[in-house]
């Protein structure tokens, strides 16, 4: 267990973040102008990919990623937010949508999102529950199923945004082989994300993924959240530089850290 000082430091770091984000929210609600987010080409490309699928008359595949709701919740929810956008587009353009799911508790979330998107587009009759397919909870059985579906149904757009481990290479290269336009995205960093970056036409890296919903909806309050996140990043950067200088030129910090 951590000592008291460490716990207080952690709570303070969290509290500062909550404060910054609340401040930005309140300011944005009162109508202050919000900054623009820099371009994220992968998210712009989703529209193009779905348009291409409509032209070719082939379906769109969206994977909800490998994480659950109880662990890696944020990655699953980002994937869900992108799914909302994708389902809205497929509902409006009439493209077929296939959503593949690994963990069963993600299934009701995805079903609800797609259903609501089709109702909002005024086409509730076009929504079919079998668009969302559970491919069982083992990592590799999910991958086997998803690769089978991609190759059998000849998907034209392949959207892999979420958390992906070793299977990133299988899913993205399988999409490459059938000539699908691919948009990838994953948090963190490592060899698995690197394969996604190499094999997909567009890819969201690390933190970019969490800005997806704000970028897609252009909701000023959400963009205010992104701007708060940037301020916090600068704050951490500042802490880092101050820490480096103090560690170099004083010795009390060294003593504290070595306890």
């Amino acid at each position, binding site marked *: 267990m951590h000592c008291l000082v460490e716990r207080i430091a952690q709570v303070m770091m969290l509290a500062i973040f909550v404060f910054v*984000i609340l401040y930005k929210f309140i300011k944005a609600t009162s109508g202050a102008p919000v900054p623009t987010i820099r371009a994220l080409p992968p998210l712009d490309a989703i529209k193009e990919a779905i348009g291409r699928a409509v032209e070719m008359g082939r379906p769109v595949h969206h994977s909800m990623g490998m994480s659950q709701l109880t662990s890696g919740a944020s990655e699953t929810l980002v994937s869900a937010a992108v799914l909302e956008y994708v389902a809205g587009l497929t509902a409006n353009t009439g493209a077929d949508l296939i959503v593949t799911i690994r963990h069963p508790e993600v299934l009701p*979330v995805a079903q609800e999102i797609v259903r609501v998107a089709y109702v909002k587009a005024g086409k509730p009759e076009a929504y079919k529950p079998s668009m969302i397919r559970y491919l069982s909870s083992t990592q590799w059985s999910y991958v086997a199923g998803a690769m089978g579906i991609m190759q059998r149904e000849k998907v034209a757009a392949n959207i892999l945004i979420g958390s992906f481990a070793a299977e990133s290479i299988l899913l993205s290269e399988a999409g490459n082989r059938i000539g699908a336009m691919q948009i990838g995205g994953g948090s963190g960093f490592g060899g698995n994300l690197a394969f996604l970056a190499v094999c997909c036409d567009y890819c969201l890296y690390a933190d970019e993924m969490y800005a997806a919903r704000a970028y897609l909806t252009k909701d000023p309050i959400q963009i205010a959240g992104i701007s708060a996140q940037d301020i916090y990043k600068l704050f951490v950067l500042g802490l880092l530089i101050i820490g480096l200088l103090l560690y170099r030129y004083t010795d009390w910090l060294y003593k504290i850290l070595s306890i």
Partner: protein
Amino acid sequence: MMYLAFIKSKQIPLAITVIITIFMLLEYYYPEPIVKNISKDIRDWSVIIAAFALGLGAANLLRVHSQNIQRRTKDIWPFSILLIFTLLLFFGIGVIFGIEHPAYNWLYVNGYLILYSAVFSLISFYVITSFYRAMSVRSLESGLLIVCAIFSMFRNTPAVISIFPYLDTIGSWLLDVPNAGVERAAIITTAIGVIAFSLRVLLGRERAQLGE
């Protein structure tokens, strides 16, 4: 009528999420026995709820595949029969006789585990074709990526290392300095992204989980 509309609204699930999150945080920052016990119970509950969700998954599989059989979907419906049959058989053995039963064990070891490593090792086949097709020098960025990948692969080629030992030094340096620097930056920014995203969910701005 007004009460019902409130209960049906999305505010209650949101409130539940906020309360549960706060308990999870309290357990970490204020580890008193009472808080710890409650949050342990909550985690147990989440395990049970997630287990109940498996029924939804099975229902989805049965629905999709019985549709396939009904409509005689070309080239697929016989396999759908196989899927439903295997599912019910394996589940039946497991629940009625327990997972220690030899029949269950036979299917687990010779079916499940073999398939598991078979799909896992498919990766290598896909690595080589992606190297051929997807990794070409289109820009400065992709050029840098490929050059670094080659040097880092030399490090894992023992025959080359024993002839040119300095390639090992270059590979280790790449791993220890540039790669570690990028990785640390990605960890920090991703963590900030996760916290910001979670706070937006808790403040009710991201409601994907509620189907909105």
